[in-house]
Each structure stands twice: as C-alpha cells, then as structure tokens.
C-alpha cells in the first residue's frame, strides 16, 4: 500500500469561520488555478495565490507551536482540493511529515493491520492536520484582532509572523 499516495488522496477541510479570512489574503482564482499573476496578487494586497497555500502556512504555524484546535463536531466545514495537487510538493510532504511525527502512531503495527483499518488511520491523520491548521488560523485571527493594522500596514506581515516561536 502506498501510504503517501493514500494520504495525499485526501482533501482536508477547514472551519467555515475562516472562509472570509482566507479569502481576504488569497487572490481569487476564479476556478482556474494559477492564472493570476503575482502582479495582480500584490496589487490586490493578497499574499497567497491559492487557498491551500495559506492552509499549509497555517498548518506549519500550528505545528511549529504545537498548537492544535480540534474542529468541534458539527461545525460547518469547507474543502480544499486534494493534497496530491498541492504545490510545491516538497512543502506538502514536509507538512505530512510533521503530521506523522505528531501523530504518535506505531507504524510498525500499522503495517500489520488491514487496509480498511489503515484507511481509518489515514482519516485520523487528516483530522490531525485539520486541527493544527485550525490552530494556525486561530493564531492568525488572534493577531488580526489584537493588531488590526498589522496585516494592512505591514508589507511583510506573513513573513514576520513566521518569527513566532
């Protein structure tokens, strides 16, 4: 079984409350990926060219700080495209790596259970990713709230946010 492939088949979801926030910082693609130029993006004051980019950013933020917020059951969620399609693949893989390391799974054991059970585990992994990303989004939201001008005035806002340790 190709673990990585199976993982990447999944499309993580995010809490709808962040829908607007993601949109604020991401340039609208209008259905066609990668058609807007950097110039357009910059002009619009956006920082990410795809929504999953921001998702990866949030996930890494959460992972870095080990800050996860599980999405409560019953929350409305929205989906991205499958991780398989995420670019760049290295970063995507890195995120997955991070998730795996946080998961605490026993992979040796995992090797010996049936496929359906493995798939279930993969679903758990996806959930974990979502939780960390959720944490990351929360961190961004908190910053926005405490310092509304931060994302408006600061040209380097998301880069400076990486400093968060």
């Amino acid at each position: 079984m190709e673990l990585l492939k199976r993982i990447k088949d999944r499309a993580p979801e995010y809490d709808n409350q962040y829908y607007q926030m993601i949109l604020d910082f991401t340039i609208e693609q209008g259905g066609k990926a990668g058609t807007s130029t950097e110039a357009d993006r910059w002009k619009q004051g956006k920082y990410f060219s795809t929504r999953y980019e921001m998702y990866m950013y949030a996930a890494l933020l959460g992972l870095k700080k080990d800050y996860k917020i599980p999405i409560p059951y019953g929350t409305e969620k929205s989906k991205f495209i499958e991780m398989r399609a995420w670019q760049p693949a290295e970063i995507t893989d890195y995120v997955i790596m991070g998730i795996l390391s946080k998961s605490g799974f026993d992979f040796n054991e995992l090797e010996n259970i049936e496929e359906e059970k493995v798939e279930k585990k993969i679903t758990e992994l996806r959930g974990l990713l979502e939780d960390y990303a959720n944490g990351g989004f929360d961190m961004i939201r908190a910053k926005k709230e405490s310092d509304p001008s931060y994302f408006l005035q600061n040209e380097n806002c998301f880069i400076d946010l990486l400093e968060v340790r």
Partner: protein
Amino acid sequence: MILQSIELNNFMCYAGYNKFDFTEGINVIIGDNGYGKSKLFDAFYWVMYDECFDTAKKKFQKTSLLKRSIVSDKAIVECDEGVITSSVKLTFHNTDKDSIYILERRYNVRKSDDKIIEDQDSEEIIWFKEMAYLNAKEIKESEQIERIKKTILPDNIKPYMWFQGEQVESIIDFNRNDTLTQAINILSNITRFDNIITIAEGLNETAKKELGKRQRDQSGDKGKSESLELRKQYLLERIKSLELQEIQYKDNLATAEEKSEMLLNKHAEAQKIRDVEAKRKNIENNLKDIQEEYNEEQKSLHKRMFTNKWVLKGTENLFEDYGKMYNQFEVKKMQIEAERNAKLNTENALITELQARLPIDVPEPIHVQHMLDNERCLVCDREAPAGSEAWLKMKELIDRSMLKIRTPEDEESSFHNFSMDLRKLYQNGLGLSHNIKSIDDDINSTYRRIRKLDKSRKLQSENLTKIESEINSIIVEASLNVDQARNLINEYSAQNELAKRTITEVNSNANLIGKRKEELQKIETELSKLVVGEIPTYLIEKVKVLAEFSQIAESTRKRVFRKLVQILEEEANKHYLEMTQGNMSSRGIIRLKELSNGKNYMPELVDEKGNVLLQLNTGNIILIKLATIMAIISARQGSRDTDLYTLITDAPMSVFGEDYTIGFCKTVSKVYRQSIIMSKEFYKNTKLREQLLTNTDIKLGKVYLITPSIPQNERSNRNSLSTNIEKLN
C-alpha cells in the same frame, strides 16, 4: 521745484478729501496691486496735462474721453442731487525764490433724477504766491501758465521723469533709433548735426548737377554727352535706390541681430533647459527602473515563502521528531525482521539436520508407518511405545518427507510496507532541513536588498524633484517651457539663416552699388573728357568742398552720436553699479553695442574684458533701462535737472527682485533731489519695509501706506470704494 503736497478730492478711488505731503528725498507710496498707486500717478499727470494713462491701451487719454470715470463712484452714489466735483491740487515750492505755485484741476458731473450729466472738459486754476507767506494770486494768461508748467517739468524731460512702470520698456528702446535719438537729444542737441547733414547733402547734389550741366554745355559732342548724361542719371537713380535698399537691409539685419541676441539669451536658456531636461529624463528612467525592481522584489516577497521555503522557518523540531520516530520505526522493523529470520533459520536448521541423517524415503514410509503402528523399532528390535523418544524419532522420518525449507520470501512478513514512503518523507525532510538553516539569512538579505532599492528609489525621486524645480526656475526666468525651448531653438536657427541671407544680400547689393559707382565714375570721366575748354576753377573747387562737406557731416554726426551714447553708457553704469551694489550675483557693466546699421544699439552686460556676462532677462533689461533713464537726466552737462525736477514713477521693481529694490531706492534718493515712488514691493514684504525705513543710506522722504476700503474680491461694487491713507513715518 519741490512738490510739497497733493490733495485729491473725489478723484477715482480716492473718495472724499485725501492729502499726501512730500519732502525732499525719496517719498514712497506703498500699496498692493489695485490699491490706487497708478490712480495716484494719474492724479499728478491729470493736473498738469489733462490726461490719464489707460493701462489697457497703454497710452494717455484726455479728460474728454475719460469723463465720468475720473469721478469717485462713491461720491456720485452718495449725492442725491446736484454737482459732484472731482479735483486734484498740486502745491509746488520754488526753493530758490521761496515762491509757491498751486495747480488745481477740476472736473464736474451733475446728478439729477438719477441721471448723470458729464461735463465735456475739466478746468484748471493756477495760483501763485510770490513769497510763501503772501496771499495767492490766480494766474489767468495761458502763456504764463504754459511757462509755469515748463518750469515745473519741461516737455522734453517729461517722459524720463514722470512715467508709469509699463512705459519703461518703450521709453527707451535701444533698437528703435527714434527713441534712442530722442534720449540722446536730451543729453545734447544731436538734431543740429542732423540738420547740417541735410544741408550738406542738398548742397552736394546741386553742385554736382551744376557741374554736370557745365560739362554738357561745354561738350565737344553734345549727342554723346546727352546719352552719357542719361545713362548717368539712370545710374544715379539706381544707386540711390540701391542705397535705400542697403539701409533697409541693414535695418533688417539690425533687427535680426537683436532678435538673434534675444533668442540667444533665450536660446542659451533654451539650451540649458534642453540639457537639464535631458538630465531629468535620465533620472526619470533610472527611477522607473529602480521602481520596477523594487516592485518586483515586493511582489515576489511572499511568494518566496514557498519557493524559498521560508514557510518552514522554525520547524526544525518537526523534522527532528519525525526523524526519531522514523528511526524507531526502522529499528523496530529490523528487529522484527531479524526475529522472524532467526525463527525461520532455526526451523530450517532442524529440517536440514533431519534431511542429513538419512536420505529421503529411506526407509520407505510404509515400513516406518508399520513400525509406528506396532510401537516397535525393527532396527534395534526394541519396544518403542507411542510418544517415547524412540517412537518420535521414527515419526520424524515420516514428517520430514513433508517438510520443506522455507525462505523469508515464502513467509508473509506483514500486510503493508510503509518503509519506502516513510523514507521518502524522511529524505524530503532531510533535504529541506538544510534549507531551513539558511532561511533567516535569506530573509534578511532579501530585506536588505529591498531596503537598498527603496533608499535608491527615494534618492532618485529627490533628485528628480530637485531637477524639476531647477527647470522650472530657468523656465520662469526665461519665460519658456520645454516646447517653447524647442521652438526657440528652431526660431533661432531660422533667425540665423535670415541674418546670413541678409548679409549675403547686403554684400551683393554693395557689389552692385560698387559696380554702378564704377560705371558712374567712368561716365563722369568720359563726360569730363568730352569737355571742350575749361571748367571754372571755382566750380571744381566748389564741387570738391561740398563733397567733402557732405562726407564730414555724415561721419561727424555718427561720431558725436557714438560719443553721446558712450556718455550715456558711462552714466548709466554709474547708476547701475550703485543699484546692484548689494547683490553679489549680478555684476557686470552695461555696454551699448552698435548694430550693423550703425544707428541702433543693443544693451549687454559684459565683464572687464568685454565678454558678454549675463544672458539678459526681463529683470536685467528693466534695470538697465531705468539706469539709462536716470542717466539721460543726470548726464546732461551743466544742468541741474535732477535738482529742479521731481521723479514720479511706479517703477516695476518687482521685475528685478527684492535684492535690487533697496539698491534702486538708494540710487534714486542720491540722484534726484526729490522723488515720489509708488511701490508694491514693500507691501507684503515687511522685512524690506523695515530696511527702507531704517537704512541710513537712503535719503527718505515721507512714506505712506494705502489700502482700499473694500477688499479686492468685493470690488464689483465700487459704490463704496474709498482709500485709506496711513503715514508710516
């Protein structure tokens, strides 16, 4: 004479009774544009000459044309019925004799039933007091009145003593022979010399005609003489018209030269503007490039989060943790593998050992089964009960045939193998971890690069602003813009072409004249050869003398004129130097350059070596003209003009800037015993006003500040306009 005071009653914007007192020295009336300064000038002029200056038409208009506009609107409105009188009174004091002259002019309109009936003319009343304390006597004889006015201000001096700012340009136009001659005439009577030229030329003509007639009369061949004479006449005509043509060309050339100079002044500015403009374009392009680069960096900044892996900043621990986990996984996996292998090996070893004891199927399984069933070993013929060692060993023999050596591949080790994927992730992480180390540096260096571009961008922007203001100030000085600069250069080239062509024409014309004159000479020689007998000596002598006379008359006039121009130049320089003393940046000497036609001149500023110093702008030219105007009066040999007559003007001092304003006032107060200057320069600029009031080099008379009763923007309603007069000293 000293002008002691002016009293205005309902005159234009001076509603009601207004008085200004004056003393010796420079009296200054300060007021902003439209406050009544030029109306005051009109008042002086109106009393003396029954005219006011129309700024729109740039000439003086008589009362009969001005009529009601002379009278204050406020006075007219406030009067319900009856006569409204507008009047101005000037009081002059003849200090030599201590006598007083009072000149008054009055103009009436009548109001009845809202209709206004205007008088056709004004009336003037002149009073004379033999001694200041005696009673005034009215002067009625017009001859006497004219004489008095001439004593106050002679006609020929008038244009140079009482003038409006707008007139300065035209009072003395160096390139118009008439105004220059007029000015020179004040210095010394050049007309006399002109008259002598007329006489000499006339005499020359007639003498030549006389000689010619004599020659024809005494001709040996009348026929030939006649025809030669005809030809001669024709030639004389031709030469005359060619010479007129020459004058025309030379005048054109002089105009072209002046235009060229003017354009050259502007051209130099224009060229400067072009050069500076080119520099500006350069800076602008630089700025554009830097701006683009800067934008690029900014745009791609966030992109770098992913392309340069900045988003992974601070996530080393993730990789570490994963590494540990992966290590554990692999280790355990190997352990499990090893265990399994060990087990397998043990089992296999057993089988191998079994197979080594006896060949397979020896003894045959039937026999072995038989022994097992009987529980007796037939080899050692002993009992082997079931489960005993012997019995088990026998069983082994049957079992072994069914046993096979197993390999690890035969075994199913696990359901899934994650190793590859996990390793892939590990290697990915490993590769990225190297990147992570250098992220901080990468970010910093990018920031540094951006900052540098920003700085450079700001610097270029500053430079651009600086150079743009430089261009603007050059343009303002030269009153050109970039397009005009381009046009100007074209025009200048065109003028140059024109000048070149004119010179060619002048030359070819001169050639033609020369040829004609040669021919004329030949004819005259021939004619004289034809003469039979003798021409009386006196006639020959007469012709010679008068020819010489004519020549001398012409060249002397030129010489005298030139000398007078020189005198004017020297005197003007005295004043100019005095006026520009305070200002270091502009020095130089005025030089009046003679133009090609030998009649007109052009002002220049040169250094001691005679090199043209400054490109003349409007300010310079006005200053030079003012200096010249003063020189005209002050250079008059043996005259006391500057003592006797008052300078009244609203000189355009703003044109030459505040540095020169004080210098101008100083000079004026030195050159003229009394002067009355209207100025706006001291209105807003209180610092300058302070200087005026406190500078000990300036012989100061009275200083007034005039302000209108209605502010500028409410001027549409003139019915309540009056003027406030405030004494400042």
